[in-house]
């Protein structure tokens, strides 16, 4: 593939042998960073989606035999426009939520637990949560309405910060790749100055000479990029496998987000070696053209 006859013997240069390894390392780091960004972004989207359409009403615990106002609250919620489904959690369901932390022997009777109502709202026409919360507090003193935004906003902020940091790191890796190619190209220009001068004097256009360097840089970067992405895929498979095992061992659902990449994520990673090749090709071309522009 793309095997070209080189007038400038760049394929024999000891100076460029390190390039594929450096590019492999950079593609590896960029792939791990990109996968991190994709996983975090995906997790935030999932949390956002799953929580955006729900509310939780919490009624304070009451002594046995005292009416907790649950029926009235449920009726109010069902009558409120924009609410699609109202589902009071049975005491056993509430206990199940706490069992991962308090142990399998834990029973709802051991603690005074608040009563929870799971509310599904119409995301396109949500109810006025502020007015609803006031109504609930009047109807059942101590009742609260949680729309999850307090902690979800915090999580989204952290996730966005992680996304920005990973993007900056990927850009820095790209910058380092550009500098590596510039250095290797300049070394090649210095080593083969005599050959380049002959080509120049027999009428080779700058683009003809630059092509010798750019195709070589493309091949070196592709070779390194494929090694890097291969190693990154192995790493991500290993992390994904370990994380899934942890999730299965823990509670159902678990707190950890899924670290498995979906197909678009893998496609994005597969494009990294091509991107590395493209960066190398363009960088080598510009470096050579700028150097040749100084020749008479």
């Amino acid at each position, binding site marked *: 593939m793309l095997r070209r*006859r080189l*007038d400038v013997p760049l394929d024999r240069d000891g100076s460029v042998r390190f390039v594929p390894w450096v590019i492999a390392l950079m593609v590896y780091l960029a792939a791990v960073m990109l996968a991190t960004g994709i996983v975090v972004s995906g997790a935030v989207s999932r949390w956002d989606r799953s929580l955006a359409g729900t509310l939780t009403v919490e009624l304070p615990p009451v002594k046995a035999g005292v009416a907790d106002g649950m029926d009235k609250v449920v009726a109010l919620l069902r009558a409120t426009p924009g609410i699609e489904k109202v589902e009071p959690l049975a005491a056993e369901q509430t206990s199940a939520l706490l069992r991962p932390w308090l142990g399998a022997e834990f029973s709802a009777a051991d603690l005074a637990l608040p009563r929870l109502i799971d509310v599904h709202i119409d995301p396109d026409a949500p109810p006025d949560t502020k007015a609803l919360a006031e109504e609930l507090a009047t109807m059942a003193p101590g009742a609260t309405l949680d729309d999850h935004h307090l902690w979800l906003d915090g999580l989204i902020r952290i996730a966005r910060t992680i996304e920005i940091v990973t993007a900056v790191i990927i850009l820095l890796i790209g910058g380092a790749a550009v500098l590596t190619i510039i250095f290797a190209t300049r070394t090649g220009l210095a080593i083969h100055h*005599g050959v380049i001068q*002959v080509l120049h*004097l*027999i*009428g080779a*256009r700058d683009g003809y000479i630059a092509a010798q360097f750019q195709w070589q840089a493309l091949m070196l970067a592709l070779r390194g990029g494929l090694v890097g992405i291969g190693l990154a895929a192995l790493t991500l498979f290993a992390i994904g496998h370990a994380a899934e095992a942890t999730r299965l061992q823990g509670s159902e659902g678990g707190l950890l987000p899924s670290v498995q990449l979906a197909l678009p994520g893998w496609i994005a990673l597969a494009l990294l070696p091509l991107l590395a090749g493209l960066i190398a090709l363009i960088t080598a071309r510009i470096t050579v053209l700028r150097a040749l522009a100084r020749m008479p």
Partner: protein
Amino acid sequence: MVRFENVGMRYGSGPEILRDISMSLAPGSFHFLTGPSGAGKSSLLKLMYLAERPSRGLVNLFGKDIATLPRQELPPLRRRIGVVFQDFRLIDHLSAVDNVSLPLRVAGLPEEEIRSHVTELLRWVGLADHLNARPATLSGGQQQRVAIARAVISRPSLLVADEPTGNVDEDMGFRLLRLFDELNRLGTTMVVATHNERLVARFNHPRLHLENGELRLERGALGGTA
């Protein structure tokens, strides 16, 4: 073909190597360029094959003023000039065929056409048995002939040779100059820099004598002029 007017040249801020050089070479002419070592012969030739630009004065090649020519128009002009370098400047990792092919390849000719032309020319200069030989495996004379073949393969309008006989014996030198003479008869304008007075004397061509940075035209042994 080649016109210099009051051309001066210096490298960087050094002394002026060439001073007020004025000359005009007609198409199809043959000139020897002579002069002592350090007189500026190579610098004058570099101006002719566009390896350098003058510090001052006018250099006009093929009717074009080099000083005002955009850089992208120089490669087509260079393809009309064949150069035989003093040190050959063959590309070590390429075979004789590939070295000679370079001017045609950079001009974008199809490979099959290049191969047939180059093979024919290398046979003509007596290197039929060394088509795929690398320069390092060839003798000085053979390398010289590969360098000459590379300079003439594209049928240049102007051929500039810098000491082309410097690395070969008297007999081979004479044969190479006969080859240049033949090319000249086919219409190529020739400028050959040489130290070898005996060889110059065997041809009836005018000489450009360069000394102390100044140029003067001398008639050939039998009165030949440009």
